[in-house]
């Protein structure tokens, strides 16, 4: 706390001379209290490793707990608590080898038992952890074996070639067998200190961390209900990092001693067309609506320029991503001729949008109405309130929107593109697609698997129901008095890896 005061004072006395952007190559310094401003949060705040709900929860979970593998800043799987996670030939068994130098915050060493205990908690159907929804389908824990203290062989109920991706999710953190939610311990670089839901939580550096320990002595995560309070606190030097900086402030905070951290993400807000409903059942109509969209205009106006263009495909960071398919651009002549062929020259449709879909949704829906009008299509906009939108009609709307975060292809398709998917908004039910997908998830050899996934993407590109016009960029902010913040494609604020952040010399 004394250190927090000292930091506050030095930030105050720095008035007048605005600190320049830190030099990323400068040596980092130990000590200080890092204060992070998290957007949202409230009484639902939790320290549970497997049920993070709010932004502050996600920030906390990433510093307290660690999964077996990490998604790195480039959205590639990297070793963490496990040194290797490898499948057998048909991807029905996976062998996990653990590091032998990992200690939990309460002093116990990490063993195979802890991993089995964690997996059991994740796939417990009564609890319903979100990281477990896919795991619970494929994992056969009863027939999985602990080979020795640091080796496990997992048995699957079906071939699954990308189990490592599921084990790298931040909400699958490993906890000890004697885990007590009231005194939460993990293996992260920070250990829990205080916790006041809706207000703040504080963490101390864990000295026995297996990797590079944190630079700062203490980490405090504050909840901020209001964007301007959050940014004011950053500019006044009371906090050093914030997530979800409003994009219109990017330029102005630069003049006041803070910087924006902009990262590409795989988050998308598609238009969803039901391939089994009315006019949308005709693939020509769907293609016409995809050609209506001026994608760059959507990025510029709906996302304030913080995004990159999409091509009606998701999972842009997956090695299997079909980047070779021709980029769709607005082509109003082709739209008219496609609609004429389909006998729908005077097409009238209703588009359902809602503020509940998130930032950029209503804005892009408005733009779509304008852009479609240029092609003579009459789109009626229905702005539903969030409870109605995600109420009983959700997943039944013929033409609507939805939001998704960064995922690779196989888990994303499992969530949205198969008849069995929980959120199949487009009602895609394509036998060729399903068969190719099933083959791909059991294919261990990556190049073969990627070929199969490429075919899946061709099918979606030709006859799917999504209009994926772009992907969002994540914009966060940090004070120039700290260094070590690097953009991450996986999560905001450099993946919330606050152990890498330090105060600059002299701050």
């Amino acid at each position, binding site marked *: 706390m004394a250190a927090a005061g000292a930091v506050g004072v030095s930030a105050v006395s720095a008035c007048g001379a605005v600190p320049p952007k830190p030099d990323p190559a400068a040596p980092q310094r130990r000590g200080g209290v890092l204060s992070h401003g998290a957007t949202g949060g409230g009484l639902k705040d939790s320290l549970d490793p497997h049920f993070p709900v709010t932004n502050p929860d996600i920030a906390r979970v990433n510093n307290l707990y660690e999964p077996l593998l990490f998604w790195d800043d480039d959205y590639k799987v990297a070793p963490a608590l496990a040194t290797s996670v490898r499948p057998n030939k048909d991807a029905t068994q996976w062998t996990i080898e653990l590091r032998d130098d990992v200690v939990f915050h309460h002093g116990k060493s990490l063993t195979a038992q802890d991993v089995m205990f964690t997996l059991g908690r994740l796939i417990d159907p*009564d609890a319903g952890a979100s990281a477990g929804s896919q795991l619970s389908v494929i994992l056969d824990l009863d027939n999985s074996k602990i080979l020795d203290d640091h080796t496990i062989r997992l048995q699957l109920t079906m071939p699954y070639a990308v189990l490592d991706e599921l084990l790298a999710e931040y909400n699958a953190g490993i906890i000890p067998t004697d885990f007590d939610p009231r005194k939460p311990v993990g293996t992260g670089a920070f250990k829990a200190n205080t916790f006041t*839901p809706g207000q703040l939580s504080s963490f101390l550096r864990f000295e026995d961390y297996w990797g590079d320990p944190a630079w700062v002595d203490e980490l405090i995560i504050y909840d901020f*209900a*209001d964007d301007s*309070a959050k940014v*004011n*606190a950053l*500019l006044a030097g009371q906090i050093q990092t914030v997530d979800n900086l409003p994009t219109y402030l990017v330029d102005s905070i630069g003049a006041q001693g803070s910087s924006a951290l902009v990262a590409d993400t795989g988050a998308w807000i598609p238009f969803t067309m039901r391939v089994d409903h009315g006019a949308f059942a005709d693939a020509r109509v769907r293609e016409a609506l995809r050609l209506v969209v001026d994608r760059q205009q959507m990025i510029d106006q709906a996302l304030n320029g913080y995004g990159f263009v999409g091509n009606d495909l998701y999972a842009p960071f997956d090695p299997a991503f079909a980047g070779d398919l021709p980029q769709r651009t607005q082509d109003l002549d082709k739209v008219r001729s496609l609609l004429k062929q389909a006998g729908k020259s005077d097409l009238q449709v209703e588009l359902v949008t809602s503020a509940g879909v998130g930032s950029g949704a209503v804005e892009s829906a408005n733009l779509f109405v304008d852009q479609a009008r240029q092609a003579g299509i009459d789109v009626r906009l229905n702005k539903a309130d969030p*409870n109605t939108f995600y109420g009983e009609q959700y997943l039944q709307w013929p033409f609507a929107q939805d939001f998704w975060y960064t995922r690779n292809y196989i888990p994303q398709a499992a969530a949205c593109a198969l008849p069995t998917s929980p959120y199949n908004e487009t009602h895609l039910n394509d036998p060729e697609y399903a068969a190719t997908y099933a083959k791909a998830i059991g294919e261990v050899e990556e190049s073969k698997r990627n070929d199969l996934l490429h075919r899946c993407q061709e099918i979606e590109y030709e006859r799917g129901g999504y209009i994926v016009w772009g992907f969002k960029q994540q914009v966060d902010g940090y004070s120039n008095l700290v260094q070590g913040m690097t953009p991450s494609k996986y999560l905001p604020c450099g993946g919330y890896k606050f152990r890498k952040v330090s105060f600059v010399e002299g701050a």
Partner: protein
Amino acid sequence: MAATEATLDAQKSAPPAAPAGRSPVAAWSLWLARRLGLAALTLWLVSVLVFLATAALGDPVRAILGKEAETSQGRANQIREQLHLDDSLWDRYWHWLGGLLTGDPGTSVANGLPVSELISDRVLNSAVLVAAAAVIIIPVSFGVALLSARLRGRKGDTAIQVVLLTLAGLPEFIVGIVLVAVFSTVVFHALPAVTISAGGEAPWTQPASMILPVLTLVIAVAPYVIRIMRSTLLEVLDSDYVELARLKGVPEKVVLRRHALRNAIVPGIQVIALQLAWLAGGIVIVEYLFSYPGMGASLVDSVRNSDIPMVQVLAMIIAAVYVIVNLVADVLSILFTPRERTAISS
């Protein structure tokens, strides 16, 4: 306007001359008991309204769980049990009222902790914020109103009126944003922009971080009070007895202090009371702007979470503040009005 109505209320509620022979103490006790009874009745009615309103919002389980209501049966049953949804409305109400009266207002649905534990600190924090603002508002209002009345018609008075009107016309969040820009972020870096404390201690352990929220409340409320006080003072200064005092040669200072101010104090009390009662619910925006850990932010969060036990208790607290502040203002008004005072105790 509001102030005069309130004064009339106070006058109406004061009983006509008590029967002769009753002692002043007994008359006062009777009057006070009646007022307390009325206050309790009001709060009981409020409790019925709050309970019915929150019960009429539809199925709370669906509101809380949203999309997951169908899939997570266990959690749904848990909430049903916690909120006693299988009992009749009548039973639920008595159960809730009983808990409220015995200091056990239930458990938060959002995180399973007792409501009392979750809000006690926050209610105290809000109370301190309002109290700190009131301590400044009262003397400042009286002082500026006196000065303005004294300078009536002159340039000083006009200047004060223009400034007050401008400030009264600004919503409090604009005032707050401007104050933060001037004192914390853009012009000077002299004061904390938000009320956050590292250890989660009470905000007043870091007095500097309370300056801007308190100042915002003062600027939001004081102009209104000053304007009412000034017009009351002017009315009194124009009255015959003040004219008489002046003709008798009483110095203007004494006229203002002894004759005008004393008579203007009652409307002043009423308008301040109304403003403070309004602040109990109205500081939500100020708390948001400064990330102040008060009950306003809790209320918004609880409404968003459909956390019905929390909403009910917070609504009751705000209602209770209204009733109590008005009661206190009425008692003070009567004490400061000789005619009323004697009417009760004679």
